[in-house]
């Protein structure tokens, strides 16, 4: 087996091993409630939003960048989409599609603006995206007048926000219903995994993160690729804005402005993507988000104090990164 492949499998196996041990311990402590299918589905549903944000962020971080504006973009795109949806006199799928496209356009535009100073002036993305964080959040409050914009046609979005997928089928099979947002997450994971691992664009993302000058001299249009990763990150934020808006029946400026940004970055890093750039994976980000989600869920089931939960989460993130580093060292020796 090749080194890269072995590396990949060791990573997966190690992640699964850690998860399995955790799961068994918690399940026993929680009198079996943890492993109930309904609980697992609940966790998947809860991680959907941070996972999708993390997927966009994964692209940026592999190029050795960072996008701090995603939380604010969830807020802004949600508000914009609610206003757009309320102004449309159509219904059903066309309403959903036009609304989502409007959000994606806003997210893509913000990503483009993020990227321009990074690629043209070589400014650090930490600064430009931090500025964008403030600007978009301010805009979001301005256009919403600081209040949630209620959807006049909230029912049309209910299927997306908290509907379930193939409900009759899962019911007939006595399975828990699969929430629609989880399906969105799976589709996003699938699409972006293919883009990152099988396309020229994806290969160039890794090349830029590994050695930008070598990539440029090999003919890679580094400015375009770097712009695109911020656009992708903005669009992922828009998808999350859409899902939240559909869930709450309104676009609120406060949505996305909490722990979303940092937990999305945590999911990426716990998932094995290097902040130094050059390596990472989408499926890793999913596992990172899953680990964090399971942890929160387990602590809730065990009635752990919510302040203490924060401490534990921080410790686990640190531990995960340390384990990953030790694993890399072990592999480079073995």
């Amino acid at each position, binding site marked *: 087996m090749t080194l890269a492949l072995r590396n990949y499998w060791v990573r997966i196996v190690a992640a699964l091993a850690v998860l399995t041990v955790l799961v068994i311990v918690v399940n026993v402590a929680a009198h079996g409630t943890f492993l109930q299918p309904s609980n697992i589905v609940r966790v998947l549903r809860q991680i959907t939003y941070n996972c999708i944000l993390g997927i966009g962020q994964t692209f940026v971080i592999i190029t050795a960048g960072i996008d701090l504006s995603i939380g604010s973009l969830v807020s802004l795109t949600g508000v914009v989409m609610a206003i757009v949806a309320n102004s449309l006199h159509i219904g059903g799928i066309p309403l959903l599609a036009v609304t989502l496209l409007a959000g994606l356009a806003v997210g893509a535009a913000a990503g483009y603006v993020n990227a321009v100073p990074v690629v043209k002036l070589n400014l650090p993305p930490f600064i430009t995206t931090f500025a964008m964080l403030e600007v978009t959040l301010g805009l979001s409050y301005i256009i919403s007048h600081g209040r949630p914009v209620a959807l006049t046609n909230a029912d049309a979005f209910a299927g997306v926000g908290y509907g379930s997928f193939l409900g009759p089928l899962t019911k007939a099979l006595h399975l828990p219903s699969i929430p629609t947002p989880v399906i969105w997450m799976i589709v996003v994971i699938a699409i972006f995994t*293919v883009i990152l691992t099988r396309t*020229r664009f994806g*290969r*160039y993302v890794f090349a830029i993160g*590994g050695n930008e000058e*070598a990539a*440029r001299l*090999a003919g890679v249009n580094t400015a375009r690729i770097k712009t695109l990763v911020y656009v992708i990150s903005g669009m992922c934020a828009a998808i999350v804005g859409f899902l939240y808006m559909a869930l709450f029946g309104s676009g609120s400026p406060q949505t996305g402005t909490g722990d979303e940004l940092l937990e999305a970055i945590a999911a990426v890093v716990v998932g094995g993507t290097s902040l130094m750039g050059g390596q990472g994976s989408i499926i890793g980000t999913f596992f990172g988000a899953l680990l964090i989600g399971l942890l929160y869920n387990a602590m809730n089931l065990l009635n752990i104090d919510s302040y203490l939960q924060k401490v534990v989460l921080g410790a686990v993130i640190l531990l995960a990164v340390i384990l990953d580093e030790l694993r890399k060292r072990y592999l480079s*020796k073995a």
Partner: protein
Amino acid sequence: MRDIGKSFPGVRALSDVSLTLHAGEVLALVGENGAGKSTLMKILAGAQTADEGEIVVDGHTVRNESPHAAEAVGIGMIYQEFNLVPHLTAVENIVLGNEPTRGGLLDPAAARARAAGVLDDLGIEIPLDVPTARLSVGQQQIVEIAKVLSKHARIIVMDEPSAALTDREVDRLFAIIAKLKAAAVGVIYISHRMEELPRIADRITVMRDGRAIETRAASDFPPGDIVRAMVGRTVDAHYPVAPPVAAGAPVVLDVRGITRTGVIDDVSFNVRAGEIVGLAGLVGAGRTEILRAIAAADIVQSGSIAIDGMPQRLRTPGEGIAAGIAFITEDRKGQGLVLGMTVRENISLAHLAQFINRELLIDRTRESAVAEQKIEELRIRVTGPEQPVRTLSGGNQQKVVLAKWLLGTARVFLFDEPTRGIDIGAKAEIYALILTLAQQGAAIVMVSSELPEVLGLSHRVLAIREGRIAAEFSREQATPAAVIAAATGAAR
């Protein structure tokens, strides 16, 4: 060093290597890349630990478990790629990790005095108060030497110290080494440059395949014997002679008056199909910059180039590649390779479009097959296409860079220091490859700091000085003396 042994996963890097160094002696350590020189020296300097054997300094066994421990017993190492902090001044770099303090605060005056003291002993003056990034490569090396001397090193290891230096800087380096010898410092000198060994070394140790093969006094070790010991076979050290350019061969590359303010000044020349043009000159004369301008890696203020008679307006390296230019950069790790990627991914990087299938995805099967084929063609020593290039030796890394550029259909090949820091065997293979490309009708421009290499391979030599073409020589006219005179301005 006695009976040193070291193994890496799957490789026996060193076995039973013993080495003696006397005070006031220069011991040259030679061998092909991968022979174990660097590993041995890293063990001496505490950057790696040996599995077996012991190190004895002045009769005492020492345990060099860290670079710090090695420093404490007087061992200093100067790596080929310097370890200077570019934003700090020469003084700050020299005292780094060992700063004089007064009352818990830094004492700049004492630091300066210490640095100046070391440099005075060497009889050298360099700017002390500018960031080292602004010093020349030769001056940076002096800072490195001063750094180890300021820690009272009695054994100094220099890994290819002359590789990046101009001839004049090499002369100064040798003068410094002579002073070190006089001060009873022992120097271990690693080099790939055969011709400088008789000038600098007292004894020469040849390593091959992780063993010390032979040690002799330098005066009793002719180059032919050294090369034989290094490769374990006889190698024709001469440069292959390129056949003459066919009469009436068309001009492939035409460079007209390219100018980049302060760097390149109105440079014009052309290269015909099958022709190899060498650019000779001192480091910093603008040779690399001329290649970068042709490849559109830098933007020029004025001037133009044409390929096969077609005028080109190139703004990015990508457009250069599309126009048929392959630029093999001098700095493999910094500009040529993505070190974290595999051999396969590096080989395909510049021509990924070739591997895109109908679904717009990369066809990995074909990509692997092509990588395998290039590995075989160029005889790249790897476990397979999935090996990360980071783990390859210099010569094999350079072959991966070449493989990358051979995938396309380039008409113009720009080689910048194609054989720097690689072993003799790999050098000969790269010379043969350059000749083959020429025979296939490519236009070739080559830059090298090794004058014999430029003179040996080129049909024509352009001497570059201060960003201009100072003189042009045919192969017959290009004697080392004439070219050096033109490149240094001594001819006027």
